[in-house]
Every structure is written in C-alpha cells, then in structure tokens.
C-alpha cells in the first residue's frame, strides 16, 4: 500500500523541479529589470506631471493593474500571431512570429506588468523626498535630471526598497503564469511531475521550498542594501 504523504517522493522531486530554476530566475530577473526601468519612467511622467504623458501613464497603470496578468500573457502570446495572420492576409505581408521564443513574450509581458506596479512605488518614494532638497539643487542651477540623479533618487531609493522587494518576490512566483504560454518553469514542472502520480501535495511543498530558499537569499541581499543606504540618515 502507498502512503498518503511520501517524503521520498518530495525529496526526489526537488532536483527534477529545480532543473527549471534557471528559467524562473531568468524571467524573474529580466522582467524585474525591465519593470524597474519602464516603471521608473512612468513614475517620472507622473512625478513631473508631464502634460500628456502623465495621463498616458495613468491609463497604462490602470489598464495593467486592472486586468489579470494571465490574461495579458495569453493575449500577447496568442493574440499577436492572430493579429499578424490577419495582417498578412489583408496586406499580403508575411511576418512570422514563431521565431521568437515564448520566454521573450513572458519577459516583455511580465516586465511591462511589473512596471505599472513599480511605478506607483517609485512615484510615492520620489514624492516623499523633501521639497527643500530639490530646491537646493535648483538654486545651484542643476537641471531636473541632475537633481533627480544626485539627490532625489538616492533618497527615494531607501523608501522604495522594501516595497520594491515585495515586487521582486512576487514576480518570482508570478513567473509561474508563463505555463499559460507553454513555458515550463519550476511551478509548471512541479505540476508536470505531480500529474504523473497525482502527488500534487508533495510537489507543491517541494516547489515551495525552492521558492523559499530563493526568497530568503533575496531578502538577505535586500536587507544588506537597505542597511547600507540607510546609514547616511542614521543619527548614530
């Protein structure tokens, strides 16, 4: 007779699942970087209240946050080829999108998605910097950009870091949505391994352990950075 909960199976499944860790990490890190960069510029549009861009940014944020990531992923992955097909038929062109690896779609979609969330964190951090700090920059004839780079961003960074940490860690797990576009990451692999024996309970715990280890390493790193940047504003 078998067992309700098989510890050996759990242990055996860990290496099988962990094989796909590079994919998970690749997508997480790449979309995180993409999200930070795009999110930063979206935040700037709102921070500086740039005329049209500020509205565009708001709509973008609202749209991206308002719709499920899974749907965005599916729409981009399946929708773009449909669009291309229609275009090709209508105009006789012959674009082919199949050469692009689904991981690229995943990174783009997740990155653009993260950007919306991160932009709000970055905006509020930028706005938390005292006006007097910026005025001091202007009084010495710095440009907006110079003020941003030498004063506002470094000070906002401290405030934003813990919240951005949330997003990094969320993203690590949100990556599992890529299975919707047929990319196998650690969560998908856990499902595949689990499906063979219907031992889902064991594989979920196995995959959770892997996530947790990654998360702890990330938290360590974030805590180090935070201590480092906070030292400047510590009284003692």
């Amino acid at each position: 007779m078998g067992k309700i909960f098989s510890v050996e199976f759990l242990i055996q499944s860990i290496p099988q699942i962990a094989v796909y860790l590079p994919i998970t990490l690749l997508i997480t890190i790449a979309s995180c970087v993409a999200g930070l960069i795009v999110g930063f510029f979206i935040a700037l549009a709102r921070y500086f209240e740039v005329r049209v861009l500020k509205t565009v940014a708001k709509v973008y944020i609202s749209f991206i946050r308002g719709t499920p990531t899974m749907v965005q992923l599916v729409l981009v992955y399946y929708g773009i080829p449909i669009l291309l097909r229609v275009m090709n038929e209508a105009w006789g062109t012959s674009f082919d999108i199949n050469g692009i690896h689904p991981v690229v779609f995943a990174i783009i979609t997740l990155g653009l998605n993260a950007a919306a969330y991160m932009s709000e964190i970055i905006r509020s951090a930028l706005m938390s910097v005292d006006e007097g700090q910026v005025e001091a920059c202007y009084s010495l004839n710095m440009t907006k950009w110079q003020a941003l780079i030498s004063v506002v961003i470094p000070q906002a960074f401290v405030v934003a870091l813990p919240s951005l940490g949330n997003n990094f860690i969320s993203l690590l797990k949100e990556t599992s949505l890529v299975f919707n576009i047929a990319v196998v990451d650690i969560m998908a692999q856990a499902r595949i391994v689990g499906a063979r024996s219907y031992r889902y309970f064991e594989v979920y715990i196995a995959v959770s352990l892997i996530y947790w280890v990654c998360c702890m390493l990330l938290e360590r790193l974030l805590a180090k950075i935070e201590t480092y940047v906070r030292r400047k504003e510590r009284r003692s």
Partner: protein
Amino acid sequence: MVEVRGLCKAFGDNQVLKNLDFQIEKGEVVTLIGPSGGGKTTLLRSLNWLNVPDAGRVTIDGVTIEAGKENKQQIRALREKTSMVFQHYNLWKNKTALENITEGLIRVQKMPKVQAVEKAEHLLERVGLIEKRDEYPVRLSGGQQQRVGIARALAAEPQVMLFDEPTSALDPEWIGGVLDVMKEIAADGMTMIVVSHEMRFVKNVASRILFLEGGQIVEDNTPEKLFNNPENERTRAFLEMAEL
C-alpha cells in the same frame, strides 16, 4: 545687476509681495530686514524663481524673466547668475559635508573632481569644518549645517549671492568669521542680497538696507542714514528694538 519690476506674489488671500520695484547695482551688499512673515524669504526665492511670482519682472545680469512668460532656458539662465543660502540650510541628506559642496561644482560647472574636492576642502577650512568633511548632515550641529550651506553657496561663485539669515544658528565667534568671509567677497565686487537681523552685519557690511513690511519696501536707505535718521516711523521703531 538686479532689477525687479512690479513683483507680486500671493499665497491664497495673503498678498505677500505687493508690486515691488527696486534695483541693485553690481557690487552692492543689500540687506533685507523686516518683521517675521514680512515676505523676505519669499522675495529672495522669487529672485531665482524658486517661487514663481504672480506678476512682475526680474532681471539679473542681463537675463530678464517675466512672470507668466518664463521658459526653462530663462529660468536656468537666471539661476546660473545666483546661488542661495537657505533659511533652513537644505543640505542634501544623502551627501557628506564635502559632497554637498562638490556636487554642484562637478555636475553644473563640470569642474574636474580633484579640483572640486580641493575647492570644497578649502571652503570647509574657511568655515572651520574640515574635520567634518565626511560627515552626513544629520550628524552635524545646527551651526555646522549652516556653515556647510554657506560654503556650498559660495562655491558656485555666482554673480549674485542670496543669503537667507546666514548667521542665525551661529555663535558670536562664527558670526564674526562668516562676516569676514562675506566682507571679503563683497570686496571682490560680488553682489549680495542678505536677509539678516544681525546688526553687526547690517552696520559693517551692508551698503544699503531695504526694509520690507506688509509686502512693500517701506524704506530703502544706506545704513548710516537708516540708523541715524530713518525716513520712516515704522523703521525707527523696528531698529530701536534691535538696538535695545
């Protein structure tokens, strides 16, 4: 050097600057005095467009800028001519005392880093803070912060310096020290506008005094005349308080 015409600024219902007109020649050291809340800071901040006036025109060293018609280039050109010591110092919290001074030199004036550091160290020496070179502002005393603020503004070597109560946090010795520095740069022909109630400054450094009250310049005079024979009744009362 500085020309102000029809300058107006209101915060809500509070008309802080009421159609100000004045002119300052190159090399003049003008002291702005007046009661608390009288608009001195607002006026100073209007001169480098940190406060956008509601109406009026400011000309500094040939750069003219008019409220409501300003553009980025004009604002930058105006600010190139000035630097400012803030009433609350506004030192950059993420920069050391030294970096507070070098930052503008390196970024705005594109001075090589070595040279900027050298200059900053020289200025820190002058304000007695060379041993606080690498300290962050939160760990400096009030007077130390103020002196770094002064050094930062001096480093820019602009056409016109705007000082907002630059000695408020200083002890008598350092007030003397800072006054000496200001006298020196005044002697070099720098134009200065200084908000100050420090009578030693008013008497010894200022070449001209503007008394600002209720949003208007109620008296514009030389120190000698002002102290010995003020034109305005209000000014007399004010100065009597200072003299005690």
